[in-house]
């Protein structure tokens, strides 16, 4: 696994649980090594939440960017920056795994 974000890779959540509480979208680490596990919660803003819901192990990151661009009628380059930014953060905290190529 690498922390380098690749557009042709497929990513999926690692062992954590995503929950919505009082309008906040949070990620609760389940197993050790994810986040820092020391009384920390992780919250996603509304943009991150939209992206997160598509990081489900089904599409390449390029596919995720294209889907979002089509759905929100936005510029691919800008969406790509957001998507890669979030994925980089999530990989750094081991909240996302890169699936092996089939």
């Amino acid at each position, binding site marked *: 696994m690498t922390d380098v974000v690749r557009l042709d890779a497929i990513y999926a959540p690692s062992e954590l649980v995503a929950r919505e509480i009082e309008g906040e979208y949070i990620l609760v680490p389940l197993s050790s090594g994810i986040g820092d*596990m020391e009384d920390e*919660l992780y919250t996603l803003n509304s943009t991150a939440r939209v992206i997160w819901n598509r990081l489900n192990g089904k599409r390449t990151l390029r596919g995720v960017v294209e889907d979002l661009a089509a759905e929100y009628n936005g510029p691919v380059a800008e969406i790509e920056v957001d998507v890669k930014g979030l994925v980089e953060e999530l990989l750094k905290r081991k909240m996302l795994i890169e699936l092996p190529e089939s």
Partner: protein
Amino acid sequence: MSGSILSSIPLPEFRVWDRLKGKRSLISFCLELTARCNLNCTHCYINLPAGDREARSEELTREEINRIVDEAVSLGALWCLISGGEPLLRGDFSDIYLDLKKKGLLVSVFTNAVLINQDHIELFRRYPPRDIEVSVYGVTAETYERVTRKRGSFDAFIRGLDLLLENRIKVRFKAMALRSNVHEIPRIADFCREKTKDFFRFDPFLHLRYDGDQIRNEEIKSERLTPAEVVDLERSDPERLQALSDECEKIVDPAGSGELCNHLFHCGAGRNSFTLSWNGGLHLCSSLRHPDCIYDLRRGNLRQAWEEFIPGVLNMRSGKKVFLETCRGCPLINICMWCPATAHLETGEMDVPVDYFCDMAHTRAGALELI
């Protein structure tokens, strides 16, 4: 994109807490897995023998727990405290613990650590609890086993505790200050502070049995310290004394709060939390065992309990003169053991004063120069 796309927030600073201030919304619950315990502590309010078949047969099954917890999660619960009895007595403890974690709950566990084994360690290492709170009854076998009445339990406790600490599982300590161990409290405090910097607290307030067992209640009363002894203990712990002084600033001022209402409940019970007892009862807090305040979750569902039953309990009122003229308006209520739950355990009624509590509160108030 503006703002931080992904933020890590220390749990106490989670902004949802601010949003929930003053609002009735579920945040946490206590899950009593069993009333049975491997120890037989003199002061315990719940323990039944480990081999008590009747108690065991009445315990919630894993499936029942999952059904209720799913509802709790859908209502917004974020934190679960697994308690007992001794929760590790349950053969399916690990399964239930993992079920809770996988629902996105932060899970804490209360245990005496005596039964901790390598399997538990592997579970906690892979799926860390928020913390494990361990009870310390003494730091010598003689004192520890005077309390637990179980030979060999001290060595097993040390073995279990060392396993937790060697594997860097987050441990917090608590100690009950009892007649049987009061001579050792300073050493217990030192022992705990050497083992972890995280947390240590002692509790000198023993309430009576949930099952009303008269013989066991007499044992509990015999373990209670006198108010003067409690004050001495509190004075010997500057951290606690400071916390108590801070708390006193929030003391209820009945004269300043207008006409007193006759509601029974003025605490946080049932506002952001509940207790699920080992046999399926929903309680506003762990100590509230009055039959009028228990909802059977085996027959009903949590949403109905939360939205209809608990508000009804919170609206209970008292017409009893002795209550309205004493506890209800007492300015020392915040440093008193009295509440409707503990009053019920002592007297069978929720709205009567309890002499021992009054003595304790007034002695503490005197020590803090409040009166």
